[in-house]
């Protein structure tokens, strides 16, 4: 196939891209494997499970929650009111299903927002007010059939 032919003609561009991506990959794998489950991650995940069930949601997988949220909520608690993060969230998560430039905001599902709030309450309660301010004006609807 022609991309192979192109590879030979622009070898050094390809090698540059490959080196950078492999470097990132190795970094990512090292960082990922460095994560350790502890009693604290388990306790937090357990508490989240209980709160979600209490709010009418199914209990998530314990190990997945521990890895995703750790002890400090990970990326979810990383300045949830931060404008940049909020922008990305609004563009990526509250939009249509496109991979190209036709991305458009939609009227998002109500529960998507509620769940994130429960996570914040468990992992970083001090961030809840910022989050509430950030999404205060978010208009939602029950667009997902459950």
């Amino acid at each position, binding site marked *: 196939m022609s991309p192979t032919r192109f590879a030979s003609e622009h070898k050094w561009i390809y090698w540059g891209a490959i080196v950078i991506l492999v470097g990132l990959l190795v970094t990512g794998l090292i960082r990922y494997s460095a994560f350790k489950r502890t009693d604290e991650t388990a306790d937090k995940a357990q508490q989240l499970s209980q709160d979600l069930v209490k709010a009418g949601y199914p209990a998530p997988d314990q190990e997945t929650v521990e890895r995703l949220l750790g002890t400090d909520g990970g990326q979810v608690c990383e300045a949830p009111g931060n404008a940049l993060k909020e922008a990305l969230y609004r563009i990526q*998560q509250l939009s249509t299903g496109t991979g190209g430039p036709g991305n458009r905001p939609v009227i998002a599902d109500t529960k998507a927002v509620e769940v994130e709030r429960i996570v914040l309450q468990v992992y970083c309660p001090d961030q809840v007010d910022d989050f509430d301010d950030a999404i205060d004006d978010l208009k939602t609807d029950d667009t997902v059939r459950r």
Partner: protein
Amino acid sequence: MASMDVPADLPKPRAEARPVAPPTLTWVTLALMTTASVASLRAAPTMAVYGLACVFLYLVPAIVFLLPTALVSAELASGWSGGVYRWVAEGLSKPLGFLAVWCQFAMTIFYYPSLLAFVASTIAFVIDPSLASNGLYTAIVIMVLYWTGVWVSSRGTKALAGLSSWGLIIGTLVPGTVLVVLGMVFLGQGNPSAAPMDASHLLPQWTGLASLVLIVNNFLSYSGMEMNAVHVSSLKNPAKEYPKSMFLAMGLVLLIFILPALAISWVVPADQLSLTAGVMQAFDAFFSYFNVGWMTPIAAIMLISASLGGMLTWLAGPSKGLLEISRSEGYLPPFLQKLNKFGIQQNILVTQGIVTSVIALGYALIPNVSSVYWIFSTITTQVYLIVYLLMFVAAMRLRKLKPDHPRGYRAPALGLICTVGLLSSLAAMFIGFVPPSQFGSGSVWSYILIVGGGLVILGLLIPWTFLKMRKPSWRTAAADAPHEGDAA
């Protein structure tokens, strides 16, 4: 605008030789480029939340928007080289041809910052998640990646064709296949699907306007299918090969959108997807079910390469179309029409880069800009719909005005297809004025005014100013000369 057609007594164009490129692309490569422009796995977790209804949410827009776009551009590209500007110029008028390619070009300027911000956040996920909300980090990543993309694009079509094709294969097709295979293994092991897969869940929840917004806005998931037609003269036999390329791309786009989203919905419950608050976290949740969580950083790198490959196709396509019509009609100053030694519109790319950089820096560093950035996405998609409106009308006119013009492919029931495409585009434009979640409790009329104002400024006022300011001496290629590589 039609009254602004080029007068007959224009001075002779400058004798600047235009490099005539030999065929450099195969139809498969062009199909991969087209697919890379439109489809990626980025949206899979978002759509997986809808469960089985995501099939409906992709198929209906495919029937009423993707199919008309693909069939019409297959016919037009098999008859006329040059892409959308040429089709509209031939079918309607040259100024409208300029308007079409301008709208396609202008839309991308606001696309790059949000795309590259996603790439920056994904890199942050891999190396240090706390970087994701750091404006300076995001600004640096956007700048470095964008200008590297400009540099790669300026090396010629071959360089970007290879990178974008491999980006699609490595970043979308391989991980997409892995997701689907793992999803099938999950079901094959006797696990019940997390999302109900029965007939009652085939349609999305109907909540009135919110559901309509979701369905109609999804039409735009397929926008960009026609964009790579600008490279049609790089094919050996455009008349025959472009339609084949389009059909392959159409199949790939549908598979990439539907199957991975479905696979995620089988494994990860919708509420848990909401809990993840990020694309990579959703992939992590998916892989963790199979105890292969270590695949998450690999998937992240793959998604990065797919996003960058897609960006390359957008850098090269619309800017080339803008160059072509500007050279033949003098719509842009000669400085912007200058080509580098690879025959690439380097100055257009650099100028676009400067504008994009300013917008991207604003996006990354100024909270007030980032918090309203989604409005730009809406405005630019509205602007892009002008391209489709013009394209469908031009296709119908060309069938009527030039029925005997040789075409390598003739779309069946073109009138019906164009009418459906036209109505879909109009519906999408209309729905674009409905305030989404992000607008909150603001006044509907102020939203209409913002989006309508943006549409008029970006989609009509700026191109109109270019047309007004053009000078006959700016023509650098013969407008009436036979176009290089006419497809059929």
